[in-house]
């Protein structure tokens, strides 16, 4: 079968890919390449697409697939990603489909997806971003350069030709501006092998465009925060049911989460963290009654179960005379603090209006004592205790 443009449904295209060995229509010429490699005139070009799970990266990959390029997705797990965790943990999310949006996008597009664990390397980006933070603790510009850099390394190791992202000029005030686009390309080391199909027409031609691997005129020139063009394009491609994240791709853009992370760093005395620390910030009510200790209070059975997995790492409290929350205690607490923690635990139990509630107080080694306390009243909990 000769050159073929996939104008039909995704499913039709997937079926086509399953039965046909067509190599796409990109004719290529010998190139000045960074990587020495012998190309033939009909060689299938390969692009690695950063797939966040949102609409833009999905559309960008789809536009390039339409040009007959072999596309595979890459997705980075930083530990801060807004994905299945909270859905899996909280009771009221249990009825929602627990899909991973990046996997869903890959399946819809009919492409492979490589999910890469970057938890350790990403710490430097969050802790000391060269370009600073956005509105909260989101180091978007450093993050983008980091991720494109990782994709660039992957491209080299796997013999791919270029990278695509779903960036749109002007979409985000800090990280997706006309002047930050070349910065990301430069700092990532991807240079002109980084193609942004959604706004390519507003940027200088990249290597894949100059060499004719992709046709520039079929790329887009989207600009600004208006989402209507993307929504129209999605409709044209028959894509619905896509994820619409409210803020960004991760918890670092969330004000409440950023407050908890700042508090965590302040209490710790330095800006370091382990995966468990940042996971716990996603779960429960967080209260800091004193500078030297904090309580994490499960809000439902799902969160209590999740927190109970940390019982051997942290002191914890739970009511024994009534039903109620499991509470983890982080930091150091003396006997007065434990009394206060017990009264707070009682407050978050079904005995909140009782005269006395019995609370089991356990240390991480399994030693247990029972305190019988009067629950705190709402007026006795200053708002600033809530993080």
């Amino acid at each position: 079968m000769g050159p073929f443009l996939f104008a039909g449904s995704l499913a039709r295209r997937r079926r086509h890919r399953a039965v046909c060995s067509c190599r796409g229509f990109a004719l290529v010429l010998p190139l000045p390449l960074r990587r020495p490699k012998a190309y033939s005139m009909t060689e299938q070009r390969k692009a690695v697409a950063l797939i966040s799970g949102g609409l833009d990266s999905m559309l960008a990959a789809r536009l390039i697939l339409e040009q007959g390029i072999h596309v595979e997705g890459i997705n980075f797990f930083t530990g801060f990603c807004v994905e299945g965790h909270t859905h899996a943990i909280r009771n009221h999310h249990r009825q929602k489909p627990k899909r991973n949006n990046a996997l869903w996008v890959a399946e819809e597009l009919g492409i492979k997806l490589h999910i890469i664990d970057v938890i350790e390397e990403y710490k430097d980006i969050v802790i000391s971003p060269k370009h600073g933070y956005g509105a909260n603790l989101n180091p978007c510009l450093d993050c983008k350069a980091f991720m494109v850099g990782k994709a660039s390394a992957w491209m080299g190791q796997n013999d791919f030709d270029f990278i695509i992202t779903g960036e749109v000029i002007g979409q985000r005030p800090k990280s997706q501006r006309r002047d930050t686009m070349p910065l990301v390309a430069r700092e990532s080391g991807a240079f002109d092998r980084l193609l942004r199909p959604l706004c390519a027409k507003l940027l200088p031609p990249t290597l894949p465009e100059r060499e004719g691997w992709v046709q520039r005129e079929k790329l887009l020139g989207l600009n600004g925060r208006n989402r209507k063009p993307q929504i129209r394009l999605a409709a044209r491609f028959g894509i619905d049911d896509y994820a619409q994240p409210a803020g960004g791709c991760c918890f670092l853009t969330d004000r409440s989460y950023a407050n908890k992370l700042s508090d965590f760093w302040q209490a710790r005395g330095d800006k370091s963290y382990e995966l468990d620390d940042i996971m716990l910030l996603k779960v429960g009510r967080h209260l800091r009654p004193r500078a030297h200790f904090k309580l994490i209070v499960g809000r439902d059975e799902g969160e209590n179960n999740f927190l109970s997995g940390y019982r051997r790492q942290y002191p914890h409290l739970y009511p024994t005379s009534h039903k109620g929350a499991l509470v983890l205690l982080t930091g150091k607490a003396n006997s007065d603090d434990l009394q206060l923690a017990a009264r707070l635990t009682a407050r978050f139990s079904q005995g909140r209006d009782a005269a006395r509630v019995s609370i089991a107080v356990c240390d991480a080694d399994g030693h247990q004592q029972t305190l019988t306390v009067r629950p705190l009243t709402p007026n006795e909990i200053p708002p600033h205790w809530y993080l």
Partner: protein
Amino acid sequence: MTRHELDARRLLCPLPVIRVQEKMTTLPSGDTLDVLCTDPGALNDIPAWCRINGHKVIDTRTEEHHIIITIEVG
């Protein structure tokens, strides 16, 4: 055909998928992998990952404290 096991209990998605992905690169086609996990999200994510990467989920069962997903390497 060899049967392998991967303990992904207490890991939250997508970590079970990442661990499966890493393990699968070391296994020959036709072998099977039993993945033990506790995050119910894995019931969706691991089969989705298998579908797009050419592997087959041949069994899923729920035990008292965890889920076992058996994958045949494609």
